[in-house]
């Protein structure tokens, strides 16, 4: 056993896959000699050479497009966005070219696009984004968002082996704060498409993912003190959504709170609420409710950011409301 951080886990996963499969290569800004803005790929260029760890100009569309072309030819590119906020610069080529390539033209496009997402780090409106909602709407993509050290490693490895294009959203708040013992030498592969029960409970289900899993677990601890038993479901994969796991938990607890860091309107929680309503209407003892960020661009000042983003106390308050309903 060795203690690894969430960031180490991503790095180890990338390294293991590059060692296993020489078709895997990395492409992005400042990822080579420098090792990337967050040092995820530190030492990789020395280890694997400049042709498998490619520094690019500031050109997100070129990064993704080049990855797609290389993938068509049988390679397995992993793109790094320096901050996931800049993924928006590749929005058109991702949704129009990459996502549709298999459907319209039988083109294999097994690419991974990863990068630091999320707030709570005083990054301001352009270094804190959660972009999942913008891609949720695109058939042909997969989206994953690890909440744990183990899944950070297991999902990057599975994403690289997956034959579909995968967006891998890592949470920068967890990078160095989250640590876990991982068994050495064990091959960790988190299946894409399957959620994880992070905590068992019977009174209420909290459906969430990424950094919010930890706030949900904190909330669950507090709630257990006043005798409320909360089940926490960590989605892990955001697209395709694991309906089976969600509905199983709903049928067990009959109350659902969906929690995400992203803003409310048009966010993932709405889609999940709709699905629960469609598939479990008769099982619901209370309306499905959402705890999300306020509908504003994420402001910079700590007081503003903390107010805008969901906090553990918010989840506790919302959960109390749910069980009282």
């Amino acid at each position: 056993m060795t203690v690894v951080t969430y960031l180490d886990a991503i790095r180890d996963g990338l390294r293991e896959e590059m060692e296993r499969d020489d078709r895997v290569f990395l492409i992005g800004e400042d990822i080579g000699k420098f090792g990337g803005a967050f040092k995820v790929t530190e030492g990789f260029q020395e280890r694997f050479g400049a042709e498998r760890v490619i520094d690019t100009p500031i050109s997100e569309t070129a990064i993704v497009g080049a990855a797609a072309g290389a993938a068509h030819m049988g390679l397995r590119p992993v793109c790094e966005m320096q901050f996931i906020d800049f993924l928006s610069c590749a929005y058109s080529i991702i949704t129009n070219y990459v996502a549709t390539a298999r459907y319209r033209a039988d083109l294999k496009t097994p690419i991974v696009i990863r990068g630091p997402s999320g707030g709570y780090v005083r990054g301001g409106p352009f270094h804190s984004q959660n972009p999942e909602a913008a891609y949720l709407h695109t058939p042909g993509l997969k989206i994953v968002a690890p909440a744990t050290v183990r899944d950070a490693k297991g999902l990057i490895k599975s994403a690289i082996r997956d034959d579909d294009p995968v967006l891998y959203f890592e949470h920068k708040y967890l990078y160095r704060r989250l640590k876990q013992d991982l068994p050495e030498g064990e091959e960790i592969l988190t299946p894409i498409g399957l959620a994880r029960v992070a905590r068992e409970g019977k009174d209420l289900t909290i459906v969430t993912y990424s950094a919010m899993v930890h706030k949900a677990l904190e909330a669950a601890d507090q709630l257990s003190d006043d005798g409320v038993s909360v089940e926490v479901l960590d989605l892990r994969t955001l697209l395709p959504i694991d309906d089976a796991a969600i509905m199983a938990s709903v049928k067990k607890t009959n109350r659902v709170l969906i929690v995400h860091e992203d803003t409310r309107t048009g966010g993932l929680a709405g889609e999940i609420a709709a699905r629960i309503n469609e598939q479990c209407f008769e099982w619901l003892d209370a309306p499905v409710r959402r705890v999300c960020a306020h509908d504003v661009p994420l402001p910079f000042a700590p007081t503003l950011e903390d107010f805008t983003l969901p906090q553990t106390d918010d989840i506790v308050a919302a959960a109390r409301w749910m069980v009282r309903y």
Partner: protein
Amino acid sequence: MTDIPAGLTRAQLHELYYWMRLTRSLEERLVSLYRQSKVVGGVFRSLGQEAGSVGSAFALDRRAGDILSPLIRNLGSILVQGATPVEVLRQYMAKATGPTRGRELNIHFNDLNRGFLGQVSHLGDMVPVMCGVTMSFKMRREPRVGMVYVGDGAMSTGAFHEGINFAAVQRLPLVVICENNGYAYSTPTRHQTAVQFLVEKAAGYGVAGEQVDGNDVLAVYECTRKAVDRARRGGGVTMVEVITFRRSGHAQHDNQSYVPKEEIEAWEARDPIDRYVRRLSEHGWASPTELMALDQRVGAEIDNALMLCEDEPAPDPASALLGVLASEPAAPLEWYRRL
């Protein structure tokens, strides 16, 4: 009989004629099918630009595994790479048997083994994508070359810029064919860029630039061939400006009233096929009978292709659900269709 230029054989000269004629005749057939509304969607002509497509694609080495990515007016390029008239007809008629099984339009289809990668509508995107294709050649030390087509209009897109700059920095084996055909839909080139010639953009990317008379198929071949050889030698990217003219409208629906008649007439006089026929005859590189035989071959091939596919069925509706993801056989059938 004078020497044949560009190290071509007599047979190759005939081939070039064949491809241009096939391109034009196939498009003419598409227009008549369009008039009979047997074509779904529009028809995009390369009338007067056939030499640009055919001459440039002919400079690639198909045996070596070179790959090109066309635009809407590069039917000739994919034919040279091995796309067949019946595939094109099936695409335009949205047949189940078509290369995209009715999912995509016109020449938006591909076969990487034959060496063509169909585009998406979003202009510019194929430049970054071809960066990736040629990057794979470089990584694997394969002596293969990529070619991507952009128009005077497409060069204004951010995707073009990011792609060619990346290719230049990486010295990728990529040839960028810039087709200056005077217009982007209704927009004349002078409203698209402040330079007079597209080739002036090459220096700004630190890549080689060439300019060629796009209505002279041998000149296009020779010029592109130099660029292809440079790329294969590891000499990096070349931007080749092909000066030509879009004599038909943007698509069949467009009567291009915005184009001065004289301009069109002037370019009719420079028709690439007529010019090539004159040249072949003058130099005795092809006899009238040989040319007639080629014309007949083209006609017969198109007739046979049409006969083969005209009555083929449309795609099975439910097939629309197949193949969105590799990991799932089909997208779920909507609940309201299960009632």
